[in-house]
């Protein structure tokens, strides 16, 4: 806890700076002060927390779960078979050059304003770091440990369950921690581009009304939610991975 104090102080200083600059500029439709944003957050609490947040979170959750399943599946089959690896790896990497924001409107064209157009954008942004990080975890297993298992008569399945999976667990956690903010970003971008609900959509609507604090409020809310989720995952990780050397 103590080592977080400097970061906390810095964060407060930055917020104070923001407050100061915003007060000097005095153009809340462009740059509202943090205090104004918090007030707006409170004023809009009903729609933000009860309507828009659940909408965005369902896109995020759905996208994240599908990305995790897909990412791990890809990592596993690439690890199992060299041919699949050679075929898939370049395609997966290439998929990252697709400008997601540019093709997101296409998804709206195909799937309309249904949740799936947004989920698809989220998956496109999120599955990649999961697949690659988990795959790296599998590849990082020690050859010697694998051979030791083989001398005990281990099958491929034993090696996967007893060596590769536990070995890749820390990678899995890093992947999830990366994926949570990405999936939220994905969902928000998708909503911004075309939706009828959600925090991204709401933020855009406030923009058309020149309500600066109203644009910021959903963004702040999203950031806080992302931080809370990552924090929870951190706690889980420390509970589950007790065997790591303390640094």
């Amino acid at each position, binding site marked *: 806890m103590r080592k977080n104090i400097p970061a906390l102080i810095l964060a407060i200083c930055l917020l104070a700076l923001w407050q100061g600059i915003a007060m000097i500029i005095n153009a809340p439709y462009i740059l509202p002060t943090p205090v104004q944003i918090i007030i707006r957050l409170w004023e809009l609490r009903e729609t933000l927390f009860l309507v828009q947040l659940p909408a965005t979170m369902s896109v995020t959750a759905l996208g994240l779960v599908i990305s995790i399943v897909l990412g791990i599946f890809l990592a596993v089959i690439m690890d199992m078979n060299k041919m699949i690896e050679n075929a898939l790896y370049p395609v997966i990497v290439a998929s990252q050059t697709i400008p997601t924001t540019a093709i997101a409107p296409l998804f709206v064209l195909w799937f309309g304003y249904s949740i799936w157009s947004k989920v698809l954008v989220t998956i496109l942004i999120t599955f990649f770091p999961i697949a690659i990080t988990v795959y790296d975890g599998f590849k990082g297993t020690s050859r010697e440990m694998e051979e030791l298992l*083989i001398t005990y008569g281990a099958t491929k399945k034993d090696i996967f369950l007893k060596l590769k999976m536990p070995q890749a667990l820390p990678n899995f956690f890093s992947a999830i921690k990366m994926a949570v903010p990405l999936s939220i970003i994905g969902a928000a971008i998708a909503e911004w581009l075309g939706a009828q609900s959600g925090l991204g959509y709401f933020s855009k609507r406030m923009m058309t009304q020149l309500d600066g604090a109203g644009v910021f409020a959903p963004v702040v809310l999203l950031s806080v939610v992302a931080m809370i989720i990552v924090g929870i995952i951190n706690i889980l990780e420390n509970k589950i991975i007790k*065997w790591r050397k303390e640094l």
Partner: protein
Amino acid sequence: MLEFKNVSFKYDEDDYKMLENLSFTVDEGDFISIIGKSGCGKSTVFRLINGLEKAEKGEILVNGISIEKQKNYSAYMPQKDLLFPWRTIEQNICLSMEIQKKSRSQMHEKAEEMLKEVGLWDYRNKYPKDLSGGMRQRASFARTILSGCNLMLLDEPFSALDSLTKISLQEWLLEECKKHNKTVLFVTHDVEEAIFLSKKIFVITDRPVTHFEEVVVPLSDERKREDMKRGDIVELKESLIKKLRQEGEA
């Protein structure tokens, strides 16, 4: 117990043979050290026995049966302890039993007995990171014994330890092997260690390896550390060192 019949072997990556027409036998209950200079093929012999590499020619028999027709006939203990960091000590030493699909209660019972024997009972729920080097080697040894095979292949198990820990573990190892009536092949760089531990020493002197030079150690089963100062033992040690060095210069 173990028999090599005219075994030849070459790594695919290399253009020279490691072993050529190598034949030797190891009797039940023997403790045999293999010495030879670095890179002469000691670990390769182990890899052939435990099936990680296939002989190009010849046959390897354990208990009279070709190793290709059997499983779980040898227990290999590598130089590094290779304890799995995410498993507790107890879970680590149960590894081979898990793979052999032993029942939970059976594993637990054997693990308890073994942990007490190697003096790690109080550490059963600790992770490898919490143990000293000597304790980790004892855990690794316990794991090797629990695989239940009578033929043990120990590849420089003590080379990374400080000399005091090493000495006490050597004595401990002799006791353990006698108690469990294991046949042991022990690779080492350390001539003194080889003499202290073994009944017979196989010296590797040529390349590719075509034969082992067998040296019988004139010490009883009830050997003591002081015996190492005996005249004939000191002489034996000198002659072995000379052999290894000669080969190095050749």
